[in-house]
């Protein structure tokens, strides 16, 4: 049976014609049986022989095994292996569902050139049951496509093209729907509208896991059209369809078994991180508690009206292909000359480059591709490698950009110093990609600023058995050292059960969390993104985390033990934008470690790190200078008093004069020399003028305003 492994390693069939396929398979089996029939007597003889020799007869024969060998539907495969798609536990299932829906919505809006506005609505319908509704203001979906998009796995527009998008495989949202049906039996409900004058289409869909086909439940298997008038509105009202009245857009509602928890790896965190990397998106979010009136709808307002540049679809780049791929492409391109083939199949290959390649390979530019044999192909492949070809065009990737990175990070992560670095695009396996790094320094840990009622809720919701576990798993950047410090300060036992704490204990804990200085015990908070989608799980398996840990942050003024994340109040955001992000699994949780990617990551991190180092060195100097001045100031009063006691000089006048001398003394050190008495590198003074750097003015501990000032852009 023909099994074609697809790129993502799933035994998938495109263009399935299930009935025919199965018929064909059955015919195959029959034919095989007929062929095998001749051997049957031999087999039996063998069997007898074996028996007479005292051996047992075979448990199953090739024939009996063949009877049970059959096609595996993609849907069945994923229904059994739901963890591959991110549905391993109820909490993650809820997140994955929302994530897939939001990602699709954002992709659709951006592709249509609409500034995205997303409504996310999570409602608890029973113990461990949630109804998730996600609506966008996208272009809407054509009626006949709706069931396929939401009810069929591996159906989509994004797999076959080389273009940057959030979704890639066409699995996500249909898998979420399938999970919902599997766990609650409730169908997936879709409303989509493409223009204000046209009717909205309403579908209730179940996925047939055996056939990997949608099964439409409403409107006698045809879906329902809701007219754009009063009658339509009444219909919506009557049938309890959830829909925010807009001109065009799509809403998907899935009911599923899930669990709502805040903290790390939560829905809230996903939306917050999405807002950082997508400053052009407006998100309305109702968490399960807003339904019961406990919290208001949360709004993540967009900070820019500028849509990201539209990424273009591209052809593969010669540096990225493999020999086998080249051979396949050659055999596909019949009837072309080599020169035509090279220029039309690859990006950045002009006819001049093509002839140079052919020359190096020792084949004529006019040779027909049909005549290119294995040897020539190999030579051609080598020649492609050796020839200098411009890197792939980068308009297929739309990076966030340094300015928006700074804006996004500054809006969500409090800090005093921000730096962003967007690397030039690079290529791995023929896929262009681009690495962006943004870093925020000096923010308080989330544990420091958690409000009391939120802490109470978090404690109530947590799965963690002990308080220590609760602290380290709930808050980012809070290591076990810091947790121990907090627990010690709160005078509680680390083994206290987190969910059974008395109100007085919670109060003590809250107090301790506010007071303990976590700056030193904090580990770097790494926010990972792939095509603007936050990656919240499997940090250890991800190339980003690995590269962050492999970078020597000590030379940039942070402390770090070998092979681990640096410590300090640092949040780092790393974004990989690519036409094809190499995930380690279908659940899209970690980026695979290609050397090209790791190299770019390293360079990006170093570039941000260098600027952080400059800032930290300067900060240290300013601090030392401040301390110095402070020491002088402290003693000036005593000196002035003593002197005026001795010679009756005017104490106040003397004090002020001495103060002037003190300022002059420390100011000259500020201006020209660093702490070692060397001339300060002018580049360090330039830090302020660097557009990729944002420094937030903050009074220092002595109340003397530092001269540092932000100029990246206006901050409000």
């Amino acid at each position, binding site marked *: 049976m023909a099994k074609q492994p697809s790129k993502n390693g799933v035994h998938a069939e495109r263009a399935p014609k299930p009935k025919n396929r199965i018929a064909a398979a059955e015919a195959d089996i029959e034919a095989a049986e007929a062929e095998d029939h001749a051997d049957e007597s031999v087999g039996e003889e063998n069997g007898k022989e074996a028996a007479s020799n005292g051996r047992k007869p075979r448990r199953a024969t090739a024939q009996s095994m063949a009877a049970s060998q059959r096609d595996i539907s993609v849907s069945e495969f994923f229904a059994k292996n739901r963890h591959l798609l991110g549905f391993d536990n109820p909490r993650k299932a809820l997140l994955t569902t929302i994530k897939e829906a939001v990602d699709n919505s954002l992709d659709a809006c951006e592709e249509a050139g609409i500034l995205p506005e997303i409504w996310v609505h999570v409602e608890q319908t029973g113990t461990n049951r949630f109804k998730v509704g996600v609506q966008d203001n996208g272009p809407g979906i054509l009626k006949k496509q709706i069931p396929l998009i939401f009810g069929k796995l591996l159906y989509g527009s994004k797999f076959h093209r080389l273009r940057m998008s959030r979704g890639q495989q066409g699995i996500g949202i249909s898998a979420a729907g399938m999970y919902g049906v599997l766990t609650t039996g409730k169908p997936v409900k879709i409303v989509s509208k493409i223009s204000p004058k046209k009717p909205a289409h309403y579908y209730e869909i179940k996925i047939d896991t055996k056939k990997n086909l949608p099964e439409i439940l409403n409107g006698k298997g045809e879906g329902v059209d809701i007219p754009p008038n009063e009658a339509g509105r009444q219909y919506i009202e009557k049938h309890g369809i959830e829909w925010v009245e807009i001109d065009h857009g799509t809403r998907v509602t899935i009911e599923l078994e899930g669990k709502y928890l805040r903290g790390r790896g939560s829905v809230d965190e996903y939306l917050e991180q999405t807002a950082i990397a997508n400053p052009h998106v407006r998100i309305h979010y109702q968490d399960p508690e807003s339904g019961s009136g406990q919290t208001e709808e949360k709004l993540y307002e967009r900070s820019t009206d500028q849509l990201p540049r539209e990424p273009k679809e591209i052809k593969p780049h010669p540096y990225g292909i493999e020999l086998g791929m080249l051979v396949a492409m050659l055999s596909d391109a019949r009837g072309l000359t080599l020169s035509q083939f090279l220029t039309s199949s690859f990006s950045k290959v002009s006819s001049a480059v093509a002839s140079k390649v052919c020359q190096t390979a020792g084949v004529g530019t006019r040779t027909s591709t049909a005549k290119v044999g294995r040897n020539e192909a190999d030579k051609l492949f080598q020649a492609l490698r050796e020839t200098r070809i411009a890197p792939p065009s980068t308009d297929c990737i739309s990076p966030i950009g340094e300015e928006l990175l700074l804006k996004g990070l500054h809006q969500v992560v409090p800090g005093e110093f921000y730096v962003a670095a967007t690397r030039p695009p690079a290529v791995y396996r023929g896929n262009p990609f681009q690495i962006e790094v943004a870093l925020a320094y000096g923010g308080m840990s989330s544990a420091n600023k958690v409000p009391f009622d939120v802490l109470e809720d978090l404690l109530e919701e947590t799965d963690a058995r002990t308080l220590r576990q609760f602290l380290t798993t709930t808050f980012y950047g809070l290591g076990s050292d810091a947790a121990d410090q907090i627990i010690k300060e709160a005078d509680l036992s680390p083994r206290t059960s987190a969910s059974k704490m008395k109100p007085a204990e919670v109060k003590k804990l809250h107090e301790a969390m506010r007071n303990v200085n976590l700056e030193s015990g904090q580990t770097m908070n790494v926010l990972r993104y792939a095509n603007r989608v936050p990656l919240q799980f499997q940090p250890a398996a991800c190339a980003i985390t690995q590269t962050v840990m492999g970078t020597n942050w000590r030379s940039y003024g942070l402390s770090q033990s070998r092979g681990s994340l640096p410590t300090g109040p640092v949040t780092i955001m790393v974004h990989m934008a690519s036409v094809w992000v190499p995930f380690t699994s279908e659940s899209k949780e970690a980026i695979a470690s290609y050397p090209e990617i790791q190299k770019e990551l390293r360079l990006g991190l170093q570039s941000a790190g260098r600027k952080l180092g400059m800032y930290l060195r300067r900060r240290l100097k300013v601090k030392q200078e401040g301390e110095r001045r402070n020491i002088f100031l402290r003693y000036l009063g*005593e000196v002035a008093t*003593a002197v005026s006691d001795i010679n009756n000089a005017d104490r106040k006048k003397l004090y002020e004069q001495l103060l002037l*001398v003190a300022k002059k003394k420390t100011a000259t050190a500020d201006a020209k020399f660093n702490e070692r008495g060397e001339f300060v590198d002018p580049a360090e003074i330039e830090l302020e003028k660097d557009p990729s750097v944002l420094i937030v003015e903050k009074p220092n501990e002595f109340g003397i305003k530092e001269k540092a000032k932000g100029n990246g852009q206006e901050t409000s």
Partner: protein
Amino acid sequence: MAKRPRKTVATNNGDAKKAAVNLSDRDKKTLRDLVSLADRIVLDADKKRDPYLDIPARTLSNIKYNKTKRFLEMGSNSNRRQLFNLSQAKVYMQSLLVASGSKRLIDEGKTTSLRGLYYMLKHSIEGTKEETFDDQTQSDTIIEDMEVTLNSMREELHLYAKNAGSMVGPITLTDTGDEIDCSRMGSGGYSIPSIVEPEVVQFGKCTAKFILHVEKDTVWRRFNEDKFWKTHNCILTHGGGQPPRGVRRMLYRLHNELKLPVYCLLDNDPWGYYIYSVLKQGSINLAYESKRMAIPDAKFLGIRSRDYERCELSPSVKINLNDTDIKRAKQIAAYPWFEHKKPWQKEIEQMLKNGFKLEVESLISKDISYVTEVYTPERLKEQDWLD
């Protein structure tokens, strides 16, 4: 030391205000020095310069052995102490506090102990929890600094140290108006005050022929009990280990004014050698006062390294030398004032060879009064001493 050139004599009505107190000439001189010190700071601040104090260095490297005068003298090196220097800012402030404290004492005509001044000046700096002085050692060193800076002695700053050291013998003296007969002082003796300047202590009648200075109180008591001073007609003193400046000044005055030779009976260890060295040449710390304290003619009577064998002492009295002792002994042997004295080199060498030290009390193993009845008289009679 040359007097600091006076730059300005600015507004100075401090003396006028406290006219009620009778200022001696010495006090007036000290006050003038203090005021000129303060005036210089005002001038520096006015000119936007960072103020500083030049303090003569009280270190071994800044000490010279004057061969003709046979005592230690201070060199001309000085350390600059700046207000606007991180490591010196606090000490600078403390120095001025000491100066102002001393000014107050002089103005009010009072004296106080080192500890008293420490408490007088100790307070927390305005707006902080930091204390002006953390402990007395800080103020003590700064007082010494100010002494050398102002070229004034401690008593001129109206400060005194605690009494340490006693004396007994056929001499009468007047201490702040009180007649004292040192031959009738009972078992405790006359406690030597820290200020024995002629204004305070005047000598009366003296029949003693020499001075025997012993290291510490216990030995001194043995000699006093045995009435050694009576039988040998001498003055008996001790300094409680390293003699304080009051004792040294007293010995100096007795030696120079009454022409009494000084003999020292000290332990046979580096410490004893050093005490002798201080009495004879002056100390490194107080080198600037050597001329008023050093007694270059003082003799070292014992205990000698060879006494273990000569007096046939029991092996139990040996105290093994430790590493610091050995190090110290070698340092002392290298002092320029010991370096060229062969008997001293032999003496120290012998001790190092012995590998043990001997205390004066060890002689008691022979007999309780061996030291007063046999050892010391024999040494004196044989004139067996080191110079």
